């Protein structure tokens, strides 16, 4: 019996139910997986990057240029690949932009680290070097490359938005949408209770309406709801309305489960039915008596009550999504009412829970009726109406617009930008290379590789633009090297703002050309990419367990 274990011992494998890969092999596999992920989105980087069409198993199509969106829709099996996908998503939620570059940089860092390890440098040394390099790079960006927005003025904001948009589907109308993004975001500026200005991106309401060209997209101050008034008999617009936002049904009241209505007299059946209807009627009367002229309900309103409201001169919108209802309540200063109950145990409408606005009106937008709230008293809202030829395009437009909003928000909140077009990457590369030579330890090699890994961004940018990457990047490096070696006041130090002009295949001053990115996005990108690369590098063993067996269903064979 003991013999059965001998065969396994010869395998010298672990006694586990699954497979195990360790050492260099697993590292190479992980790096390969990361590489594969990066290759998928590599070509969508930059202003001349191309889009991907993704078709899922039921045939739904998504067309996107956004790294996070593409990766989210990919079915990634490999666990190391999954880390990169998560990385892109994290960048998306935290920064909102730079999702493609973060993955490309992480994959490049991994590839170079693997080469180093193959030439017998211990992974721990590489990791230490990467950490040091990342720290230095972030410090360098913050100290040397970042520019205060205050100095650059308002145009800088538009430039930032434009830089983000330029790589997306909206690129052709860059300045149009960039200005739209900036003014929409400025419209929703709200101070938090500490008095600090906040720019809630989700207060910018984006409506996608099919038809017309992207150029005809528009924005206005106010909140638009993609729902019509619930009854055609209602007025088209109410000026200076009193707004109630309710979260209960205005329908015939039904008793709860567990309450049984038992009657032995046909008369009382009628009475009960009447009472069911009356409870809601009373509520409507109460609302009207309180002077409410606009009701936004997250639930339904029966036709009979809609009619009552219409006759009372009020307008109502039903089935408002809860998220929208909450924002309307916040904007108009109303409270989202779950019930009309008051503290005496009765029902009444508390005037304090009602909000005000300047105008509520129903307007027609292409094929849809849209209710618009203008001039809400508490918080401003902005609505952007995107027009496009088809759903795919509209979806991608929304994502692009969202990215640019995020970028502008970051700049507004942190107040610093860096030149784009690969300028930062090349500058950091030059800086780190000279920094590496000051260290007389093994980490030097890792730092140099880290520096070179960053060059993958300008290289990829020029490759995507079908330009000679070798020549352009070499030239750019020369510029930046000159800038960093020059004295602070010499004219050469201005060269540090130089980046790629991908349309003409030349170099230019990115700041003057208005190619700007939020500084925070770059720093975060470096930090997260390094973190993810280290995370994967530390792995020297991968154990895959067999999938759990589903317990057999005893009824399956019946």
């Amino acid at each position, binding site marked *: 019996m003991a013999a059965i274990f001998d065969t396994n011992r010869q395998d010298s494998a*672990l*006694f586990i139910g699954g497979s195990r890969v360790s050492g260099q092999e697993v590292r190479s596999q992980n790096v390969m997986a990361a590489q594969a992920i990066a290759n998928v989105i590599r070509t969508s980087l930059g202003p001349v990057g191309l889009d991907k069409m993704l078709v899922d198993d039921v045939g739904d199509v998504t067309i996107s240029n956004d790294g996070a969106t593409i990766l989210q829709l990919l079915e990634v099996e490999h666990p190391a690949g999954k880390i990169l996908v998560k990385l892109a998503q*994290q960048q998306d939620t935290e920064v909102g932009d730079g999702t493609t570059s973060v993955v490309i940089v992480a994959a490049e860092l991994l590839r170079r680290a693997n080469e180093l390890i193959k030439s017998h440098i211990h992974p*721990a040394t590489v990791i230490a070097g990467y950490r040091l390099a990342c720290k230095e790079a972030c410090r360098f960006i913050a100290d040397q490359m970042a520019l205060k927005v205050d100095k650059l003025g308002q145009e800088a904001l538009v430039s930032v938005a434009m830089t983000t948009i330029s790589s997306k589907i909206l690129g052709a109308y860059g300045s149009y949408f960039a200005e739209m993004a900036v003014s929409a975001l400025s419209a929703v500026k709200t101070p938090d209770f500490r008095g600090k200005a906040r720019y809630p991106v989700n207060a910018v309401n984006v409506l996608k309406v099919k038809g017309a060209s992207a150029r005809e997209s528009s924005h206005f101050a106010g909140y638009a709801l993609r729902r019509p008034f619930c009854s055609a008999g209602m007025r088209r617009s109410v000026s200076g309305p009193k707004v109630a936002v309710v*979260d209960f049904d205005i329908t015939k009241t039904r008793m709860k489960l567990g309450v049984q209505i038992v*009657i032995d007299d046909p008369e009382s059946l009628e009475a009960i039915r009447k009472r069911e209807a009356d409870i809601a009627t009373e509520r409507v009367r109460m609302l009207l008596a309180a002077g409410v002229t606009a009701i936004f309900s997250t639930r339904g309103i029966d036709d009979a009550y809609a009619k009552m409201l219409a006759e009372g001169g009020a307008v109502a919108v039903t089935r408002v999504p809860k998220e929208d209802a909450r924002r309307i309540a916040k904007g108009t200063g109303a409270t989202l009412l779950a019930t009309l109950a008051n503290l005496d145990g009765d029902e009444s409408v508390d005037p304090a829970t009602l909000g005000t606005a300047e105008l509520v009106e129903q307007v027609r937008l292409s094929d849809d009726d849209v209710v618009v709230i203008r001039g809400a008293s508490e918080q401003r809202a902005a609505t952007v109406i995107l027009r496009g030829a088809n759903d795919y395009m509209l979806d991608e437009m929304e994502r692009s617009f969202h990215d640019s909003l995020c970028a502008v928000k970051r700049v507004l909140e942190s107040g610093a930008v860096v030149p784009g077009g690969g300028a930062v990457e090349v500058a950091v590369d030059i800086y780190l290379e000279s920094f590496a030579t000051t260290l007389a330890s093994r980490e030097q090699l890792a730092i140099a590789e880290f520096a070179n890994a960053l060059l993958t961004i300008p290289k990829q940018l020029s490759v995507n633009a079908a330009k000679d990457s070798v020549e352009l990047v070499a030239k750019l490096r020369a510029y930046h090297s000159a800038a960093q070696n020059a004295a602070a006041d010499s004219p050469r130090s201005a060269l540090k703002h130089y980046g790629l002009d991908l349309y003409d295949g030349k170099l230019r001053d990115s700041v003057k050309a208005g190619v700007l990115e939020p500084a925070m996005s770059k720093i975060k990108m470096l930090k997260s990419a390094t973190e993810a690369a280290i995370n994967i590098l530390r792995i020297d063993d991968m154990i895959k367990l067999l999938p759990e067996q589903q317990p057999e269903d005893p009824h399956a064979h019946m």
Partner: protein
Amino acid sequence: MAAPTTIAPARAGGAAAPKRQNDTFNQKDKPMQVRLSNIAAAKAVADAIRTSLGPRGMDKMIETGKKEVVISNDGATILKHMSVLHPAARMLVDLSAAQDVEAGDGTTSVVVLAGSLLVAAEKLLKKGIHPTQIAEGFQSAAVEAVKILHDISIPVDLGDREFLLKSATTSLSSKVVAQYSSVLAPIVVDSVLRVVGAASESNVDLSDVRVVKRVGGTIDDTELIPGVVLNQTAITSAGGPSRIEKAKIGLIQFQLSPPKPDMDNQVVVNDYRQMDRILKEERNYLLNMVKKIKKAGCNVLLIQKSILRDAVNSMSLHFLAKLKIMAVKEVERDEIEFLCKATGCRPIADIDSFTEDKLGSADLVEESESNGSRIVQISGIKNAGRTASIVMRGANQYVLDEAERSIHDALCVIRCLVKKRALVVGGGAPEIEVSQRLSELAKAQTGFQSICFQAFAEAIEVIPTTLAENCGLSPISIVTELRNRHANGEKHAGINVRKGAISDMLRENVIQPLLVSTSAIELSTETVRMLMKIDDILASR
């Protein structure tokens, strides 16, 4: 790639056993076979996690049967997820878990040590020494080893924060969060010190240290919160407040929702007036409860989760919001004790016993948002109990989970110091010292005991050897040099991982609790003894 090695001892054994039934008693070499097979299996486990030992140890990535990915450096965690099948190998997994419970740290070393002891035992077995004698010999060697460790240990005073910080840093240095140890070590030390009350206490209940994990931000943003942090967020759907100053905190174990009749019972209505009464009754029922709560002065309400009824409904939330009471629901049953201790309130099981003396008070209860997630924080608590709350941040779930495990290990290290206030140095120094002194002892003895002592002494050198290997150093030259240094009386000489050389560990601040080392030796020796004493594996139903 290694082939999948699934084995099914039960089935294979069942088929083979009856045929060989008679042989079993005749075969003299069978017990030996069983032992060797057990040793091989256990060794495989030890080899599997060997590379994650020490500050330059690597991580393992495990894809579980449910396709979840776990990345870890912690021996106990790796082994727990590995689904080891061989019964003897399982013992090593349990060994690691035992060390986790006892000391919390050193879960990798204990398994590596056990593996090495088994290799030594295998050699002795082949020399023809009886397994029982090996077991006895190892046992007495372990007793001696523990004595030696006590002898070379350095007593520590809990007031000496520096020392505690250093030991926490040593524990953290081998983890993925190593570069954040300057942030995390003080958090760990302070939170344990906050929980330890009187200086005389000999144990710490780590459940009094709460770790709340939130994705977003980096590990740098991890902080020790003065006060309490809730896992849950405030309910604001009905417009309730999310910031209360001069808070009075009530913790209730009943629900603010209308009671439901039993399945079998029905409320029967036969008149329309009764409908109104039902609606009104519901309103009044909730209103009375909420009013009572308000009357007691409570303005922050924590509601325990219930599986039978909704904790709150929209009506009661509406009332709570109207009376400016902040509500937090879904408080788990096992959190109650912690929250009571932390906030100084007492759980209230019934609305009638909702009185002011059961409330806890704090200066501020506030829900704040940072890095994309919201947390509720209670600060300025009056007569707070000894608890600590840590909010952990990390870029993704993997990092966060691993960071939590690392924090746990570091907390355990400090707890070990509270339990047994002595330190030994790290970097393989104590192991070399023990090894050398055991060799001395071996020379003073005769017979199998001497051989066992010698074997044990050599086996324990696996720790410095593996450390050196994992740092990319040559194990032979490092270990021999260490022996030399120790023979010359430098009892704190250990492997300096950063410099790749040997130096005085005490000066390098690489220190660990004595308890971790002694418990590793004791536990691994006991496991080896047990494995030695097995001479047959039988499949049972």
